[in-house]
């Protein structure tokens, strides 16, 4: 059972007095910071979940938001939120990308596809046009490992700055995470299974901290774990945070992302139970420290009142001088969902990061 009320938003909102009267002032404790969205993607009556951000190398203005719709596939939006491309690929759950030239573009976009437990891949061109890679789909369960594994769910990509190696990470509702190496020859993708990681129950969100060589995994009902990213390293999990903490007061843990401005680094976690982003400092300490919670309130646009996936970039974009936070918003006019775009500068100021 979940009861989710954005008390922070209510407190500053038009109806604060009335709401305080019937909920009681004590209910407003521990609200975190509230910022507002600057833009939003076109809404869909489907079921959006996870965004990725592709930053155009030539001009930030040509950057793209790529969003999953679990009833449809993938959509590509510009920074005004207008839909530029649609891919009716099926039940696409999570999406991620990394720079990659092996298929003829400048980046490789990957995603998890639920109906057939596959990973699907697309090439992003320098002009910001996405096309299916070849081959487009790969089985996500390694040969001989199918026993006890069911339902692909989360997906992330990982690169090793030292070697240039590229990896795909796919997790399953039964708790397994498979790490694959991605290579390409003559424009043709190839995947090689490397190792398996495990958490105790259903994971979803994952992010690779490429700079630090770490993989963070969200176990939805439990918390956040960290693994060494090197495929030759131990598969032991390190506890980052557990549900019930300051940053994760209740489940579910959803998507994860890394914001790295070159001097300060943060892990961003979608705390779905309170529909906020939980921010952790990655300042070299062994265990990331909770820096605060941020909710997206109503301003010129409606707030993020019920959320799922998120993504961040530290790259400056037009109107977003310190980068962008993108969060899924489950409730919009017309029973629709979309993605909200938030300035990281506002998040940093509100939380004093």
């Amino acid at each position, binding site marked *: *059972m*979940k*009861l*989710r*009320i*954005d*008390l922070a*938003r*209510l407190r500053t*909102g*038009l*109806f604060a007095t*009335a*709401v305080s009267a*019937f909920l009681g002032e004590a209910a407003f404790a521990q609200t975190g910071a509230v910022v507002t969205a600057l833009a939003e993607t076109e809404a869909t009556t489907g079921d959006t979940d996870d965004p990725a951000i592709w930053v155009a190398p030539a001009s930030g203005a040509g950057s793209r938001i790529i969003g999953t719709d679990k009833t449809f596939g993938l959509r590509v939006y510009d920074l005004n939120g207008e839909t530029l491309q649609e891919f009716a690929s099926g039940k696409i759950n999570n999406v991620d990308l990394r720079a990659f030239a092996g298929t003829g573009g400048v980046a490789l976009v990957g995603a998890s596809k639920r109906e057939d437990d596959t990973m699907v891949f697309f090439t992003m061109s320098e002009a910001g046009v996405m096309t299916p890679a070849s081959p487009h789909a790969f089985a996500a369960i390694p040969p001989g490992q199918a026993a006890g594994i*069911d*339902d692909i769910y989360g997906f992330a990509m990982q690169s090793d700055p030292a070697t240039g190696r590229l990896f795909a990470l796919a997790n399953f509702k039964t708790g397994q995470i498979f790490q694959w190496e991605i290579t390409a020859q003559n424009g043709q993708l190839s995947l090689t299974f490397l190792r398996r990681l495990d958490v105790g129950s259903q994971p979803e969100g994952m992010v690779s901290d490429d700079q630090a060589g770490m993989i963070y995994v969200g176990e939805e009902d439990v918390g956040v774990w960290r693994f060494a990213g090197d495929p030759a390293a131990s598969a032991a999990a390190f506890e980052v945070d557990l549900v019930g903490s300051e940053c994760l007061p209740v489940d579910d843990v959803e998507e994860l992302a890394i914001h790295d401005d070159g001097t300060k680094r943060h892990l961003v976690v979608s705390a779905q139970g309170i*529909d906020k982003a939980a921010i952790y400092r990655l300042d070299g300490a062994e265990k990331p420290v909770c820096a605060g919670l941020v909710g997206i*309130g*109503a301003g010129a646009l*409606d*707030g993020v*009142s*019920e959320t799922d996936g998120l993504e961040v970039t530290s790259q400056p974009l037009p109107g977003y001088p310190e980068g962008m936070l993108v969060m899924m918003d*489950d*409730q*919009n*006019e*017309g*029973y629709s969902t979309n993605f909200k775009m938030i300035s990281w500068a506002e998040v940093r100021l509100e939380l004093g990061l």
Partner: protein
Amino acid sequence: MQIPYQTAAAALVLALVSMPVWAEEPGKMAETVGNSLTSAPAEWLGAQPHFVMIGTINGTAFNVQFTDIAAAMGIASFAAKREYLVIEGGFAYIDFEVALEADIGGVERTVEIEMENENFAKQSLPADFALQEAEFPAGLLSNLETQWEWEVGGASFNEEVLGWTGVMRLQSDQGAPDDKGLMGDGMVSGYINAVRGADALVISFTAPVTEYEIED
């Protein structure tokens, strides 16, 4: 300029009357307009597509009376979905949900109910399923999950509630099987009389099925 108190009072009354229910209590569920039932129905309300939910869920009062979906105003969608599980030699019909999206009290609201069984297709209908907590129970047992959500002023109000006891009469469940023998159309109908602590809830529904999903 002085405003006569009668005028001021009339203006206040007008303002209060025109004020949406959520302006008073955003987390409160408004009643549907033109309700004809003065109490919860004692039995299924018939084959005409309808959705009636009367009672309380976690103390929140619901009085939703769409007794004729086709004639009702403010409904964005009203549909049911069946869910099948892949089993050896075929499929088991393990779940169905009924979802209503409607403007009630000036707010777009979603209300859903979901029932589970080891295989609903094994039972001859109509049949009474005792409500209990276990997932996908075998035989004449089911569980009931109620969900609702709406957004007011940027705030989300939503809840998923399990743990009901009582009875669900699955009145009828018909459709045209496809080449797999699965039904993504037709109608599902029933009557629920449930309790959960201090809550009591009665639901009558006849809903068009618009899709199915396979859980593998």
